[in-house]
């Protein structure tokens, strides 16, 4: 068993390093409304994040921002919990049940991975209210609100922006993990590029495949993939890869290219050293969705059914911070109007 | 036991290099050393002999600072010293050459020597000069820039000795140094040791090869059951008397009784060959027969194809040409398991690596190699009860010293492990017994028992193939001796009228095969 001793040491080192990095994110608990004149409310909000949780500088953080805003404005009492990588389905269910058993209502599940768990637990607790982000399969469940986004529409606009700005007629797309959700980003982006100039070449790469979700949190992978695209002649790369995006920006800076951020206005949130390569960002306003949902709850009604956050309600969009696309805003707004009008129907699958 | 030399008279303090007085070392429940008293005179070769487990190695570990003694004193050059680590021992001028060499194969001799002693003479020209000085002074004939992996066993041993001298040792302990050497290398080693002695160094020589001890040592201390029995002068003692001192009882000899050889050929090996990827074949056209009731001894310098011959007969080698027939059945193309099950008992050369599962109980070791046969199996399943009962039988019949069949093989001494293997291989009704170095590294008591069992096998009508480096053993037990050299059988001898010297020269290809 001497050989296994060595292996165990290796394994433990692995587990520990994983745990230590993961622990980093639980320092910033939900901001407590410490101000003395803060409004108060007896609504307890349970927030179940996807892997990465608060602090992922992406999707989860965006949801957290909506929660924070609601907490600040309405004085709700929040509690949060995040998923661990590769956890069992029962772990997700138990997370929701723990909220349910401890007086939390509503309970917000961040991410489509919760779909089955929400379906099951919402049936067990019909008197409580649930919301799920990025999933519309529970449209008919009376105590579940489904908050979904038209990512393809926002992606269409940044695709058009890329097409208008590219000098090499060659752009790229990097997806974090190849899931139907991220494919929506790709489809919209490609459609936007083609709408401007169908001859522009679009490189597409996904960092990992399901069930390996590390593509959403591995800047090194993002950087390598982006470098490849810049080397091949692309000058603008759009990433929908969560935390891996940082690597895409670094590669853009080193290659002298441009990059497009995702989910939030990454010009504001990314590392200052790379912000000048961020041409624009595709905004997926999860925070808006969460905030609006909680605002309705605060008003006394629990929404149910599917709410789609699209261009029409500014649930998705693009950012202009940094001023790199100021000159093409009129063109983009024209596309936006066409999409809202339905003249352009953006595909959701590549 | 009449010829014991007088106990050493009180000597001038300065002439005693090492004086051990009343050394005791006990481990819980076991007394490893008890009241050990030894005086090693400066400029002499002092041998320490004893059975395996008699406490020699514990004693040497104490002297080399690996373990502290529980009682007693160590004096080196007249001063009482406390040796709490090998570093202390080296500072006190004590060096040790272990049985298993501790050299890095892909380093040169120079690099191996200076490794860990860089402070003494650096790693460059000064170190090289020092190595050459030592090599010349003691006739070690070391080439500093050769890679160790290119060196033979004898040369490696000289590098080990040089390493010790390089670190300034004046007292050198050699643990079983001849176990790995062939006869002419042994002679060279002894020449080297005498050279060291003449330069005023003291050599402590641990061995159980009594003839060698008698030929090289000035004084011999016998250890039995952890304590010093006697210090004798080799001039006045025979090997047999020495051996009897070691075991405390009368001894057998390996010689066989009247011939039991019959006409019936049991093992017939014809034109056995084993090509080697690099040049000279490992086995080259080997043919011999062994008859019922016959012991065929194979003599040879280690590495001349003995191991390959055994493995080829056992079916453990790929690419073997020629045929092996056992009792008329052609075994040339069947698996090792089928060969064993058709009646081959096998006592492997390296019992710990090939013969035993060290971390399994004895009863599981009884099953090893006999998985397909009763008493190991019943109704196609492993029969623990049957195997245990049969192990108990072997323990009793073959005098395996163990509390029972459930102890791990690792807990047994080498001799007892070997007796277990012999007992196992003699079970299952073999018709051929292959015994490869059956008494190597076992103590005198077990050696005698193993010889008896081999003789017994012959009496029962088995064919026995005996490979040994111990020429006395070969001459004593065999009905016929074949000499193997570079993968070929180069000469047959009648053990009745051959001397070890004649065999030795045939083995090295020097002599005229009788």
């Amino acid at each position, binding site marked *: *068993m001497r050989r296994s*001793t060595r*292996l*165990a040491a290796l*394994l*433990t080192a692995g587990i*520990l390093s*994983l*745990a*230590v990095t993961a622990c980093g994110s639980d320092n910033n608990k939900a901001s407590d409304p410490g101000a003395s004149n803060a409004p108060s409310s007896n609504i307890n909000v349970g927030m179940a994040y996807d892997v990465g949780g608060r602090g992922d500088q992406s999707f989860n953080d965006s949801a957290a921002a909506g929660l924070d805003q609601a907490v600040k404005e309405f004085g709700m009492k929040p509690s949060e*919990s*995040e998923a*661990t990588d590769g956890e*069992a389905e*029962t772990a997700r269910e*138990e*997370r929701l*049940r*723990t909220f349910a058993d401890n007086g939390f209502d509503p309970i917000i599940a961040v991410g*489509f*991975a919760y*779909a089955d768990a929400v379906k099951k637990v919402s049936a067990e607790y019909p008197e409580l209210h649930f919301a799920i982000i990025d999933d519309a*399969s*529970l449209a008919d469940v009376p105590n579940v609100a*489904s908050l979904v986004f038209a990512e393809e529409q926002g992606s269409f606009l940044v695709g058009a922006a890329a097409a208008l700005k590219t000098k090499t007629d060659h752009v790229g797309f990097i997806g974090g993990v190849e899931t*139907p959700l991220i494919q929506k980003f790709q489809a919209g982006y490609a459609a936007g590029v083609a709408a401007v100039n169908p001859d522009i070449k679009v490189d597409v790469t996904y960092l990992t*495949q399901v069930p390996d979700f590390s593509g959403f949190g591995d800047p090194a992978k993002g950087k390598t993939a982006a470098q490849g695209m810049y080397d091949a002649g692309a000058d603008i790369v759009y990433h929908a890869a969560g935390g891996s995006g940082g690597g895409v920006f670094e590669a853009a800076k080193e290659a002298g290219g441009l990059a497009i951020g995702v989910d939030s206005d990454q010009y504001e949130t990314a590392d200052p050293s790379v912000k000048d390569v961020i041409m624009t960002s595709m905004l997926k306003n999860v925070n808006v969705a969460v905030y609006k949902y909680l605002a309705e709850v605060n008003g006394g009604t629990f929404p149910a059914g599917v709410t789609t956050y699209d261009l029409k309600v500014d649930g998705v969009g693009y950012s202009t911070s940094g001023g790199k696309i100021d000159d093409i805003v009129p063109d983009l707004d024209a596309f936006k109007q066409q999409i809202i009008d339905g003249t352009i129907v953006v595909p959701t699958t590549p | 036991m009449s010829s014991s030399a007088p106990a050493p008279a009180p000597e001038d303090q300065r002439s005693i290099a090492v004086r051990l007085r009343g050394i005791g070392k006990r481990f819980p*429940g*076991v007394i490893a050393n008890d009241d050990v008293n030894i005086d090693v005179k400066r400029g002499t070769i002092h041998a320490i002999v004893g059975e395996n487990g008699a406490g020699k190695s514990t004693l040497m570990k104490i002297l080399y600072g690996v373990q502290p003694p529980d009682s007693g004193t160590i004096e080196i050059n007249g001063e009482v010293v406390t040796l709490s680590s090998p570093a202390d021992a080296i500072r006190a001028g004590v060096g040790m050459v272990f049985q298993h060499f501790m050299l890095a194969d892909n380093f040169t001799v120079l690099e191996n020597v200076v490794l860990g002693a860089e402070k003494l003479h650096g790693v460059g020209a000064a170190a090289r000069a020092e190595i050459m000085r030592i090599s010349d002074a003691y006739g070690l004939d070391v080439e500093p820039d050769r890679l160790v992996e290119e060196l033979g066993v004898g040369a490696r041993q000289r590098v080990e000795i040089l390493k010790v001298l390089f670190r300034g040792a004046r007292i050198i302990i050699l643990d079983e140094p001849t176990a790995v050497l062939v006869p002419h290398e042994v002679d060279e080693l002894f020449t080297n040791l005498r050279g060291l002695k003449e330069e005023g160094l003291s050599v402590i020589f641990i061995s159980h090869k*009594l*003839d060698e001890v*008698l*030929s090289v040592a000035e004084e011999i201390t016998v250890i039995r059951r952890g304590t010093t029995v006697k210090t004798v002068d080799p001039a006045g003692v025979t*090997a047999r008397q020495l*051996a009897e001192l070691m075991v405390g009882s*009368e*001894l*057998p*000899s390996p*010689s066989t009784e009247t011939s039991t050889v019959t006409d019936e050929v049991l093992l017939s090996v014809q034109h056995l060959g084993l090509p080697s990827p690099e040049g000279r074949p490992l086995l080259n056209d080997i043919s011999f027969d062994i008859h019922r009731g016959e012991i065929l001894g194979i003599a040879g310098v280690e590495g001349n194809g003995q191991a390959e011959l055994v493995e080829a007969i056992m079916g453990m080698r790929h690419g073997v040409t020629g045929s092996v027939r056992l009792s008329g059945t052609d075994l040339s193309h069947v698996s*090792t398991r*089928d060969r064993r*099950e058709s009646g081959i008992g096998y006592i492997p050369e390296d019992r710990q690596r090939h013969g035993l*599962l*060290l971390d399994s109980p004895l009863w*599981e070791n009884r099953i090893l*190699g006999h*998985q*397909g046969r009763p008493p190991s199996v019943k109704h196609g399943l492993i029969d623990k009860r049957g195997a245990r009962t049969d192990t108990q039988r072997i323990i009793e019949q073959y*005098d395996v*010293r*163990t509390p029972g069949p*459930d*102890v*791990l093989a690792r807990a047994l001494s080498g001799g007892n492990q070997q007796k277990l293997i012999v007992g196992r291989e003699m079970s299952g009704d073999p018709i051929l017994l292959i015994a490869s170095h059956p008494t190597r590294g076992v103590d005198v008591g077990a050696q*005698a*028992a193993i*010889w*008896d069992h081999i*003789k017994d096998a012959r009496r029962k009508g088995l064919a026995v193939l005996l490979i040994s480096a111990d020429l006395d053993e070969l001459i004593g037990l065999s009905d016929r001796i074949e000499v193997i050299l570079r993968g070929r059988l180069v000469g047959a001898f009648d053990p009745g009228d051959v001397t070890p010297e004649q065999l030795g020269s045939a083995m090295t290809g020097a002599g005229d095969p009788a």
Partner: protein
Amino acid sequence: MSPRATKFLLGIAAPVLALVTAFAITSLVLIAAGDPAGEVWGQILSVPETRKLTNIINNATVLYLSGLAVAIGFRMNLFNIGVDGQYRVGAFVAAVVAGEAWLPGYLNTLLAVAAAILCGAAWAGIAGLLRATRGVSEVISTIMLNFIATSLVAFFLRKAAVRVEGSNSLGTKVIPEGSRIPSFSIGSGPGTEVYGFLFVAIFAGFAFWFVLNKTRFGFDLRATGQSTTAAVANGISVKKMTILAMLISGGVAGLVGLPILFGSAYSYGSTFQSGLGFAGIAIALLGRNNPIGIAIGALLFSFLNEQSNALQILVGVSPDIVAITQGVIVLTVVISYEIVRRYGVRLEQQHVAQALASEAPPPPGGPSSAEPEEVRA
């Protein structure tokens, strides 16, 4: 003390030592981070309610199979790091087969289970074959095969996936109800359904014990694991054993995902539990490759996972803290087993020496010992 009692105490000593150390180290980490160690342990060590107990048993079932698969390799000194890939391939194939429902009812289930075993075995067999014929380290090849398995399954999953309207998950066709393995309830209310596959896992554990300890094949496997040289010399074909051991290990690995598949998920999708193979390595080490030990290890890991889930909500401490506990348990278990093993060997050697010392002095050699001839000097 009788040797048997000593052996038992030594066996218990190692895991207890490991657990205590792991708890102490975890507490230190908690205290250093300024987290309430008392509350954390209060939550983790609380008595689980029936629903959680169900989850513990269900997840332990899955971990147990993974641990067994790894342990089969370990017993032969083969490191099947690829259980992760093997179970994924197995679960995916089973999901597709069961989802297609070519056969009715339980015949469909049987076919799917057989397919999972075969595919897991084949996947591991590649590594076995490479090891046996080309000497490729199974550690390297199984790690590589994990990557390939991930991509391969992802590729085919997209082909086989059935999109549910509004869902962002990818999943295979749902297994028809008649082919699901029924659960049994250990309490009232929802979430107290224990996988019926539990019995398959228990049977696998028994089979593991029986094959290893009672059959010639198991003996050959253990012998090869202890000493390949001794195995060869005693007529065991190491190549054959290597391939067979990998095949069996992979076959069991193919079962790992099935309790989930047939007990709760009913399809293989992007949210199917991952990382089970690696957990199995830790559990096999913890359980000392012994079927009972692995069961205890699986229950312990499952217990810690389940009990820590609510930590963040109730105590405000990340459940990742138990990853530290689990890691330290594995490390300390291995260290303390090694310490206890060495102590045990020493004890036994002393025991042997003592037993022999108390015997009468050895009788002189055999029958022919009287022959008065000198050994040549």
